[in-house]
């Protein structure tokens, strides 16, 4: 057993899940677990046939519930660190080592792989960039922390945070809310540069209306929870 667990949440990712895990196993030595979040496509069959290590949620819980399952698994099995890696192939496994090395060296509680802390090849849509910038200022205003890529899901946490997440993890759109919570509890968060590619398969779950809802909801909830 390695000291690092890679958590791969997967909801209807039959196009990319096998390649993502295959590349992961080839390039790094850490343990992984795929959380199949009640997929309705062939994701589960692919996981089973290829004998991949996975947990099968019988009912779809959403990204928050799926990630929390991963953190609970990490807690149960005594892992030191847990990394979220998206199944759609946006996260480059080559950056894994950098994240692990950084959290071990710096002793921070969370290290986020950021697309914006230094210049990278990432090209997101204008709307997406505006959204990310909005959350940057929101976190600066509410929590007084500077996170250039607050929506990045590519993040590593230590055992203290694994424990926290096992107790509470937001159900939907967890990325930003979690940062507010952690900053409030005075955990130390750091960012390093990573490369992100465009999706290898599947569809993005974000629509314009959903992102408006997402931004408003996170703003209200974060404001309320940071004050009271």
């Amino acid at each position, binding site marked *: 057993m390695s000291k690092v667990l890679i958590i791969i949440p997967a909801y209807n990712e039959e196009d990319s899940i096998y390649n993502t895990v295959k590349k992961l196993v080839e390039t790094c030595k850490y343990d992984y677990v795929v959380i199949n979040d009640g997929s309705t496509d062939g994701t589960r069959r692919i996981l089973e046939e290829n004998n991949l290590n996975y*947990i*099968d*949620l*019988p*009912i779809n*819980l959403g990204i928050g*519930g799926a990630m929390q399952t991963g953190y*609970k*698994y990490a807690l149960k099995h005594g892992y030191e660190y847990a990394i979220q890696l998206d199944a759609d192939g946006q996260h480059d496994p080559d950056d894994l080592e950098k994240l692990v090395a950084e959290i071990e060296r710096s002793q921070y509680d969370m290290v986020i792989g950021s697309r914006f802390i230094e210049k990278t090849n990432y090209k997101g849509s204008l709307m997406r960039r505006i959204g990310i910038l909005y959350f940057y200022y929101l976190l600066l205003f509410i929590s007084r922390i500077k996170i250039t890529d607050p929506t990045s899901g590519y993040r590593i946490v230590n055992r203290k945070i694994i424990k926290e997440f096992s107790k509470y993890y937001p*159900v939907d759109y967890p990325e930003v809310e979690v940062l507010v919570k952690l900053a409030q509890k005075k955990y130390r968060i750091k960012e390093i540069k990573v490369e992100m590619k465009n999706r290898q398969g599947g569809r993005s779950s974000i629509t314009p209306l959903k992102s408006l809802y997402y931004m408003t909801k996170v703003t209200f909830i974060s404001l309320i929870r940071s004050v009271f």
Partner: protein
Amino acid sequence: MDIVQVIALIFALLFFMQVIFFTSRNKLQDKQAFLWIVFGIISLLIALFLPSINKFAHYIGISYMPALIFMVAFLVILNLLIYQTTVISSQQEKLKNVIQELAFLKKQIKDYIKDKEDKK
């Protein structure tokens, strides 16, 4: 007793009987059942003391008494709704935990069976 009060009493009684019916058939959990029984009794009392409530409404400057009842009922129902939403939220949380535990169990059983087959 004027006819309005009789109608109010009949409705309050029907409501109360409905609550008793659901409670006796175990359609309501104890905590919720008690809440509704209290509500049923309150509505009965309101129907019984309708004339006094009328006077009270006039006393505090509400000329149209039903407005007072609507206002109070609205506030009570709003509170009840928030309470019900907290119940739903806590149940969703519990359900999530059960689903996660179930998933862990499924994995343990699968790993166990695989282990046994490998040893054969």
